[in-house]
Structures are given as C-alpha cells and as structure tokens.
C-alpha cells in the first residue's frame, strides 16, 4: 500500500535503483538516459506526495546502529520543500545533462550518471533525515559521491580542484561537524530534531551552545561561509551540469539546509538569540555576502563569477539562521528555493554558451544574444531574480531577511543586503548587456546548440517567474515551522 513510510523509503530507493539501472544499462546510452529521466520523474512524483503529507510528520526508522544511535527519517515541511526543489530540478538538470554531455562528447558518462543518482539520493537523505546523525551520514555520502563528478575530466587541473573540494569538505565535517554532532549527542542524549530546539529543550547553557554554534556554522562546509568557501570556486573544474547540481540543487543547498535545520531544530531561535556568538556569526555572514560579491566582480570567467555569487547568496541563509527571528529564518528557507531556481538557470546558460561556442570568459561573449535570444532572456530573468527584483521569486527572501534583520535589531545588516543587490546588478547584468547590445565577434555560430541545453534554462526561468506568485502558499506551508518553533523555544527557556 502507498503509505507515508513507503514513500519515505522510496525517496531513497528510487535514486538508488536508478543508479543501478544506469550502471547496468551503461552500454546503451539511450536506455541509460531513459533510466535517469524515469527515475527523476518518479522521484518528483513521490516527493510531491511527500510535500502533501509533510505536516503529519511521518517517521521511518531505518536502522538502530547502537543504543542511542538511530538512523531515522522524519518528514517535516522544511525537508519536504528541499526535497521538492532537489527532485524537481533533477528532472530539468537531467535533460540538460543529456544535451551537455552528448554535445561535448564527454567520457565516462555512465559513471557520471551513476554518481548523479547517488548524489540525488544522498540529498534526499539529508532532506528527510530525522536526526543529526542521519543527516551527517548522508551529508558525507553526498560529499563522496560528488567527488568523482568534480574530477570528471581527470586532468591535473580537475584533480587539484577535486583535492581541494574533498579536503575542505571532509576536513570541516570530520574536524568540526562531527565533534559538534557527538557533543550534541553527549549533551542532549540524542540527536533528534525537536521542535523548539533539542539543546534548548535540554537546557544547555548559551555559552556551550555558542561554542557548538560556531562548530556547526563552519563545520557545515557546504554552506560555504567564509573562510571555508574555497572548495566552491575550485569545484568549477567540473562539467557544467555538475556545477548546476553543486550550486543549485544538491550540494550547497544541502549545506544551507543543514544549517537551517540545525538552527531550527537543534538550537531553536531563542537559544541562538541567547548565544554570545550568533551576532558575530551574523556579521561574518554579512561580510561573506558583500566580500564574495566583490570578488565575483573581479572574475572574468563566467563560472567562477557565478561561483562567488553562490558563496554570497548562500550566506543569506546562514544570516537568516543567525538572526534567529521567525521572519529572517523564513527568508532563509525561501532563499533555498528561489536561489536554486535562479542559479540553476544561470549555470545552465553558461553551459549552453560553452556547448555552443566553447567560450568561458565573459569578455568573449559579446553579441552572442543575437544568436541565442531565448537563452539570454532566460539568463537575464535568472539574474534579475538573484538580484531580487519583482516580479521574480528572488524578491521575497531578501524582503523577509531585511524585515527580520530590522526586527531583531540588526538594522545595519540591511545595508549589507542592499549593497549585495547592487553588486549583483554589477556583476550579473553586464553579460546580458554585452550579449544583446555589443557587436558579435564572429559572423555566426560554429554549431547550433542542441535543443536540450536551451530548453532547460528557459523552463527554470519561467519557474522563477511562477515562484513569485506562489509566495502565499509557500509562506503558509513554512510559517508553522518557525512560528511553532519559536513559540516552543520561548516556552522552554
């Protein structure tokens, strides 16, 4: 029967089975890609069901590792939302991957698709996890399964980037996150996600919680809070679908999602507000936002620029968590969704340009908009959403964050947010301008880009537009999490 528990299990099983199928069908590219797409669609359908039943909080216990150590799935709205974003974008990204990988004649495509499946499965695991340990576990699987993707090209450059990728992420998670998880387990006796905050419920003192908060903030390396961000630009050596996966769908979103989840369910807003370190962390997030935007301006390589843009945008979520007001946290949660759709559009556009012209530097891209108008329109829509202009999805998180900052007495941080938006304009829009208005260097394109690399960005750009109008349902869906959480936390403290 179609029970919530079954559905939870399927969320993990579908990508796994998909991965096996892809591996087995490795010799038949069409069937292989078919398997990927079928899994993606099935997963999305399954997640849609999960989104619907999320408020009832179904629980699935996977394994009992030892007394006090469980692997548990527990569905709640935040996780459901993240799962929806990841699974929804996986379809688009799969379509795009097919176009990109074939268009560029990449090697080892089977390995690529298998790792992709595993990565999505791991992202599902992170999204649905019911305690810190489970989350940590899938978080690590995600790191390991994306490593072959990052080093896909296999040349020296890729290996170097992969090394930095792996060492920073694993280093932070083993060196900082794991001790934090174990310390949480030690302090609270479990690692379960509890409304109002596990640590708050167990009456951990703000001083100790403050230390833990720092460990978590930097230990979740995937959230790319400065100074643990260098893995992200270095991972740009990967093929573009991977970059899209890293920066929009799975990896970084898993990071900030973990941050949000830890903030909401392990600490609770009230405890975060009470810790001595949250202010400092909020400022570090603010500095990250501005500084990486500035760095992004200096990059001529489109993907590198987008990477630093991601670093900047991710810190919005961290900022939301550290501000610890319901509105700010809601803004953070929305940022996960909106940024995902916006940024994937940008990355897919970059990849499409590369597939069509083999160009990677912005300065070379003059006039390309004339040959690929749909693509450049999609890019511009995505960029505007990132900047935060209505009527695009990216508007809302910034608005909520500003309100939240004001509400929690950090008015100065609003300046950082505004500055960031201005900088966004400065580094994202020149490409649109150059693409449409400069004179092209060449008379015509060497080859016409495949349909499958143009269509996906257009779809996501349309999605960004739709998301603007979906704010009402989204807000209603998420609000109980933060409101009940802060209420429960206040009751506990």
């Amino acid at each position: 029967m179609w029970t919530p528990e079954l559905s939870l299990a399927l969320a993990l099983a579908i990508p796994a089975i998909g991965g096996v199928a892809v591996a087995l069908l490795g010799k038949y590219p069409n069937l292989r890609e078919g398997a990927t797409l079928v899994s993606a669609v099935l997963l999305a359908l399954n997640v849609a069901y999960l989104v619907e039943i999320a408020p009832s909080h179904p629980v699935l216990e996977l394994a009992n590792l030892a007394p006090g150590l469980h692997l548990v799935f527990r569905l709640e709205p935040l996780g459901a939302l993240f799962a929806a974003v990841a699974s929804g974008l996986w379809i688009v990204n799969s379509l795009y991957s097919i176009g990109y990988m074939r268009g560029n004649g990449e090697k080892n495509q089977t390995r690529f698709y298998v790792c992709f499946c595993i990565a999505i499965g791991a992202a599902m695991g992170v999204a649905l996890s019911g305690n810190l340990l489970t989350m940590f576990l899938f978080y690590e699987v995600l790191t390991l399964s994306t490593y072959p993707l990052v080093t896909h090209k296999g040349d020296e450059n890729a290996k170097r980037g992969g090394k930095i990728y792996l060492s920073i992420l694993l280093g932070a998670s083993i060196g900082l996150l794991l001790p934090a998880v174990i310390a949480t387990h030690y302090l609270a006796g479990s690692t379960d996600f509890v409304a109002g905050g596990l640590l708050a419920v167990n009456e951990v003192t703000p001083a100790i919680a403050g230390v833990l908060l720092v460990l978590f903030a930097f230990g979740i390396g995937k959230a790319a809070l400065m100074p643990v961000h260098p893995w992200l630009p270095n991972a740009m050596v990967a093929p573009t679908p991977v970059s899209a996966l890293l920066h929009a769908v799975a990896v970084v979103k898993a990071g900030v999602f973990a941050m949000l989840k830890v903030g909401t369910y392990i600490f609770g807003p009230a405890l975060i507000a009470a810790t001595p370190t949250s202010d400092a962390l909020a400022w570090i997030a603010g500095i990250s936002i501005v500084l990486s935007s500035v760095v992004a301006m200096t990059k001529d390589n489109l993907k590198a620029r987008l990477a630093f843009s991601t670093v900047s945008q991710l810190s919005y979520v961290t900022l939301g968590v550290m501000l610890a007001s319901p509105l700010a946290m809601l803004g953070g949660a929305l940022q996960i969704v909106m940024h995902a759709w916006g940024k994937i559009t940008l990355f897919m556009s970059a990849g499409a340009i590369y597939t069509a012209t083999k160009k990677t530097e912005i300065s070379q891209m003059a006039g390309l908009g004339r040959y690929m108008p749909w693509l450049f329109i999609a890019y511009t829509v995505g960029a505007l959403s990132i900047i935060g202009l209505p009527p695009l999805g990216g508007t809302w998180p910034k608005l909520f964050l500003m309100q939240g900052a004001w509400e929690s007495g950090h008015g100065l941080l609003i300046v950082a947010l505004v500055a960031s938006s201005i900088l966004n304009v400065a580094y994202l829009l020149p490409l649109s301008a150059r693409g449409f208005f400069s004179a092209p260097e060449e008379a015509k394109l060497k080859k016409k880009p495949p349909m499958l690399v143009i269509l996906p960005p257009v779809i996501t750009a349309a999605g960004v537009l739709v998301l603007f109008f979906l704010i009402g349902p989204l807000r209603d869906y998420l609000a109980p999490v933060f409101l009940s959480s802060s209420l429960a936390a206040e009751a506990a403290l």
Partner: protein
Amino acid sequence: MDMLASLLPAGIAVHAPALIVVIPLIMAAVAALMPRGIFAWGVTLATAIAVAVLSLNILGQVSTGGVISYAMGGWLPPVGIELRVDMLNVPLLLLVGIVGLLCVIYALPSVADEIAKKQQSLFYSAFLVCFAGLLGVTITGDAFNVFVFLEISSISTYTIIAMGAGKDRRALTASYNYLVLGTIGATFFVIGVGFLYMATGTLNIADMAAVLEQNGHDRVTQAAFAFIVVGLGLKAAMFPLHVWLPNAYAFAPNFVTAFLASTATKVAFYALIRFVFSVFHPEVNFVAMSFTWLFAVVGVIAMMVASVQAVFQTDARRLLAYSSVAQVGYMMLGLGMGTAAGLSASMLHLMNHALMKGALFMALGAFALNFGVRRVKDLAGLGQTMPASSAAFTVASLSLVGVPLTVGFTSKWYLVTAALERGWWWAVAALMISSLLALAYVARLLSAIWMETPPAGKAGLAPARRLAPWMVLAPMSLLAFANIYFFFHADPLVGLARAAANAVMGGN
C-alpha cells in the same frame, strides 16, 4: 547464545578452552609432516575451522554461564596453570579464530605465489604455531604461561616474516630487528612477572590480584608494572616502541601481514589490558597516573606522529603499517581514559581495526598477486583492472578514516563520547586531527587506485587475470562487507566491547 553454547557436544565443550589451543599445536606438528603444501594447507584449514567453531562455542558458554576456569592437568590454581575465559578475552578468541579462518582461506593462492613449494608445509606449520600461540596468550590465566605462549607466537612470527625474503631480502633484516626487540620485550615482561612473583608468591593472574589487593603495592610492584607495560608495549607496537613493525609488515609475505596486522598486536594489547586492569587495579595511584600521563599522552602522540609518517611512505604496506601504529594510539587513548566507556571504546576499536586492516592487507596482497604491486604509485589505475579488490580496499580504507556507514565511524563515535564523558576536549581534537591525517594518507592510496590511469600493459589484461582468485576475493569481500554490516548492526560488537570493559572494571 544458547545456540552457540550447544554448538558442540558437552563432552567436548567442557574441554573447549584447552582444545582451542592444543588442536592448532597438534596440527602444527601434523602439518610439518605433510609431504606437500596443499595437504598442509588442508590441515591448517581444518584447524582454523575447528578453532572458529570452538571460539563461538566458548562465547556461548561464557555469555550463558559466566567465567570459565579450566584447570590444566587437573591441578587447581594457583598450584596448576589455569585457563580462564571471561568477557574480556572472548572477543579476542573470536577475533583470532574468525579472522584467522578467513586468512587461512586467503592463504592458499597467496602462499603458493610467495613461498617455495618445498617449504610450504613447514611454513603452514609455523603459521599454526603462531596461531596457537596467540590463542594461548589470550586464554591463559597464568602470568608465566603468557610469556611462554607469547614466545611461541613470537618465534614463529619471526620465522614467517622472514619468509618474505623470497621477494625482498629486507624481510630478513626486518625479521631480525623484530626478533631483537621482541626478545627484549619478552625479557622485560619476564622481569615484570618475576617481580610480581616476588611480591605475591603466585603466578596465577587472579590470585596475584587478590594478594596484591590484600598486601598493597610497593616499589617492587611498581617496577613490575613498568616492565610489564614496556614489555607488552613492545609486542603491541605502542609508540615509540613500534620501530620493528613497519618493516616487518612491509616485507612479510602478504598473507602473514594480513594475519598479523589483524591479530598479533591486538592480542598483545589485550594482554596489556589484562595486566593493567586485572592484576593491578585502575584505582591504584600509580596505575591511575600512568593512564593519564602515559597511555593517553603517548596514545595521542602516536595518533599524530605515526599518521604523519604514514602520509610520507612510498611503500603501500608500510604506509598501512604506520597507520596501524596510529590506530594502536587510539586504543591507548581509550585505555588511558581509565573509564569503562573508554575501555569499551578501546576494545571496540580493537575489533573494528582488525576488520579494516585485514581487508586492506588482503587487498594489497591481491594486487601483489596479480601485478607484484608494492609501492603506492604502482597502485595506479587498479580500480579499472581489479575493480572488486579495489572496491573492498576502498570500503576498508574509508572505514580507517572513520567515514560514516563504516565501523570506523562507530569506533570513533564511542571514543569521542568516552573522551567527552571524561571532559577531555583535547583528546577529541586529537582524534579529529588524526582522522584528517588518516584521510590524507588514505586519499593518496585511493586517488592512485581510482583517479590515475593504469600504465600501459595493465589495462589490456585478460578478464581472468583481472579478478583475484575467489579464495582471495571471498575472505576479503567478507571483511569489507563486515566493515559496513557492523555499522548498521553495531550491537554485537558494541555489546562485546561493553561486556569486556565491565568484566574488568566491575559494574553491570
């Protein structure tokens, strides 16, 4: 457990503690008489199966009926020699028995490759003596008998390590150095036992503890403690007494390395725990001091220094050997916490480490079998040419780092929890740094295996050569699988480790 306890007929089960040592010894003599290596291997295999069954049976007996005491020759202790099995040494018996069995299966192709035909039956005989010696050390309840069996296992170990000389003459010097240091260690141990005898007048471990509790400690027992710790520390490769180990592991025949790495140092470490906790008492002043200032501190240094040394090795097996020294550091740290939680974490890591290193060295042996690979850079591209062995290697090495989904994670979890319970934040930091160093050296191995392209000549191998023989593959995969299985079903191992700690620390 009841099922295990009734595994054997009562008439045999009563004598299981004696048989588990004596059968391998008898079979060692029988193996030496065998005209051909394959027969000797058959004898060895039969013995290993018998020992594995006996160890399971003893586990059943101990868990249902409590401590077993077996009076050798019918002379009750302290007059006679007692064999004594409690929850502390049962895990070691199981470990030696079961890992031993897997290693023996693995031995046939590996030994056929590395040892001259004429020498094989003697080689198996020496292995069985070593096997029996380790079991004998584990099971005995008599301090001097520990020495005798320690030497039985050591002398045979020197021999089988030296048999690596067929491939590399450095096996000889490695074996010689081990012989000299091992004998110094054994002699130190004898001095320590002599002092204990001087102070107590008895050689039975339990009796010694009783007398010491009554008489209290004086300078003689303190000196005894120092000599026993150093003596057994040498055998257990405790930093900085580990200098014999890297070369011995690097140049021994592959099968020997796999077996020794997963059992020999473990048994010596067990003996150390037995003396420190059962003969001396953890609450005696100088013992408690030694926990913090000797075991914990030296353990942490070992975790760091040996890991760093591992990072810079060119020989793959020597790299893993240094990693073993670092892992002994983890166990020392757990022991040094002086708490039941710390000791059980230490025991857990002891068992888990055997699972990891067994699989790792077996995989390296499989590589060597097909390609004669010894150095790290020779591993290049093996992921493509030998995918199954490489996969097993990968699982085990991730376990070594402590990545989730592997037992390495479980043991680190318990170590950190124990450290937190003790309030030792610096130990937590050390554990994490050491894990990162482990990541560094493991990454060298794994990136060579998976990311490099195989040199010309290897890629084009016929499929038959690409697979290791199933006798290599099966035990290796089983161990690698155990690394994952016991993450999800940690209860059996954690339960054993807890019971072991409680057996010597008191408590429930």
